[in-house]
């Protein structure tokens, strides 16, 4: 099936009667934009570009998207899976086409995305493929091993699997979390995960332990997490940095063993977060470099390697911006505005972006790291004097307020991305 412009218009459904769709400019300077990937970056970009009057097709493999944000709350039994599940009906209703399928490859000369059964032409392409887990990077850890030692670093069935394992574990068991080197999706995520699992264990299985085996000697918001752990879960969480032998160098799912250079840890539950790279389509499109991630313009998020392709979200190398849902959403809107300018023959304006990452140490105990970013020497750099983490030693009311804001942020950003 070849999706022609006419066909796209025919399948796109009636556009919402939003005031801007009727504007004169719609006839000229708009274009066909294909967006690959329906996470925070892709869904936001698709909606923004459609709202700007372009003909947008979103390609996404799955009918349901489970968000990584708040998936740690599911692991801790604080939320059901439905609370983190989103579909694409609101996008369809907003006048863009959603194709459930997998982008197999890109032809940057003909400007086409190849699907299993056809091709989608584009004037501009947005790739927001998220991450691929590297099943070639950690000896013993392949896709089959992930069914025994879940990564749960893409939310969905893996989240449910890890939740079931934690629920089934006997009191006194050890839950291990193996953390890779930087860069990876959601730098504070493993430590929020440890916190919220500890919240569950403390109440339900208080003789149990959490062992964080880390390939790093530092981590995001470390003083805040350690302050929270000492206050909320004393003795429950042990963090082993790489310098003390924390890096997992091999796993054996048959014996539930995690191997470091110094020891073998046999555990009841093993959450192995492996090294990562940009989603497969980025490699196929040749927009990923030797690091496995995608260098982009800090103004437009256009690939530094292939013109006409913009890469946003976890897959891109966004300088100092961390790989977060907040970043992906902010990048999507900047890229959409830049693409709109380019398609209308204009020049994209300067870019400036914000990231804020909330972490929960407990349902009523939250804190943040924030940053403001602008281009400097060809990459996004932090604006000096801004950003940073919540203060240490803050009163409980401040932690509770940030936990409330975390939930409010989640409601707002998921509404902006998915409707």
């Amino acid at each position, binding site marked *: 099936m070849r999706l022609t412009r006419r066909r796209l218009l025919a399948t796109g459904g009636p556009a919402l009667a939003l005031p801007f769709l009727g504007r004169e400019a719609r006839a000229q300077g708009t274009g066909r934009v294909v967006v690959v990937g329906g996470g925070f970056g892709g869904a936001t970009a698709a909606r*923004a570009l459609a709202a700007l009057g372009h003909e947008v097709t979103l390609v996404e493999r799955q009918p349901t998207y489970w968000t990584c944000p708040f998936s740690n709350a599911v692991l801790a039994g604080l939320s059901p899976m439905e609370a983190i599940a989103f579909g694409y009906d609101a996008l369809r209703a907003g006048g863009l086409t959603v194709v459930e399928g997998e982008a197999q490859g890109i032809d940057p000369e003909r400007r086409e995305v190849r699907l299993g059964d056809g091709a989608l032409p584009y004037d501009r392409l947005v790739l927001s493929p998220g991450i691929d887990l590297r099943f070639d990077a950690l000896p013993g850890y392949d896709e089959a091993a992930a069914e025994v030692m879940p990564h749960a670093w893409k939310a969905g069935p893996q989240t449910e699997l890890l939740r079931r394992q934690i629920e089934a574990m006997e009191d006194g068991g050890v839950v291990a979390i193996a953390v890779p080197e930087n860069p990876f999706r959601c730098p504070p995520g493993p430590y929020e995960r440890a916190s919220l699992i500890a919240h569950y264990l403390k109440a339900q299985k208080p003789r149990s332990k959490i062992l964080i085996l880390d390939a790093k000697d530092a981590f995001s918001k470390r003083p805040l997490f350690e302050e929270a752990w000492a206050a909320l879960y004393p003795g429950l969480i042990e963090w082993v940095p790489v310098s003390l032998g924390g890096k997992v160098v091999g796993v054996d799912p048959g014996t539930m063993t995690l191997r470091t250079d110094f020891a073998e840890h046999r555990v009841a539950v093993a959450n192995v977060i492996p090294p990562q790279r940009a989603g497969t389509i980025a490699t196929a499109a040749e927009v990923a470099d030797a690091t496995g991630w995608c260098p982009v313009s800090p103004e437009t998020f256009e690939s530094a390697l292939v013109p006409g392709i913009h890469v946003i979200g976890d897959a891109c190398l966004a300088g100092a911006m961390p790989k977060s849902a907040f970043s992906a959403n902010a990048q999507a809107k900047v890229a959409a505005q830049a693409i709109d300018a380019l398609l209308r023959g204009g020049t994209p304006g300067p870019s400036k972006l914000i990231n*804020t990452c909330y972490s929960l140490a407990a349902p009523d105990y939250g804190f943040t790291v924030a940053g403001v970013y602008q281009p400097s020497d060809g990459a996004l750099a932090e604006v000096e*004097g801004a950003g940073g983490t919540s203060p240490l030693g803050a009163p409980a009311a401040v932690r509770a307020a940030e936990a409330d804001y975390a939930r409010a942020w989640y409601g707002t950003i998921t509404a902006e991305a998915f409707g």
Partner: protein
Amino acid sequence: MRAFAIALAGLATSAPAQEAPSGALSCTGCHALGAEAAMPLGGRSAEEIAAALAAYREGTREATVMDRIARGFTAEESQAIAQWLADHAAKE
């Protein structure tokens, strides 16, 4: 979503010179422009928003994270963002 569509509607109906000022697009990840949202900006005037940003920037208004964010913007940038947010929020 409505607020988001409206914010971007503003982008689309404005002349290129009036596109969202630097940094403004990041705001709506937390602050939906509708009055029904959490952390709403709906109904706030540009003056109110600019004054809040200035107070956060100078550390004279109690904050959790907005002080750390506001310090990343100059007075001129903050003013432009406040105007843009107010223009789009006002349409709700």
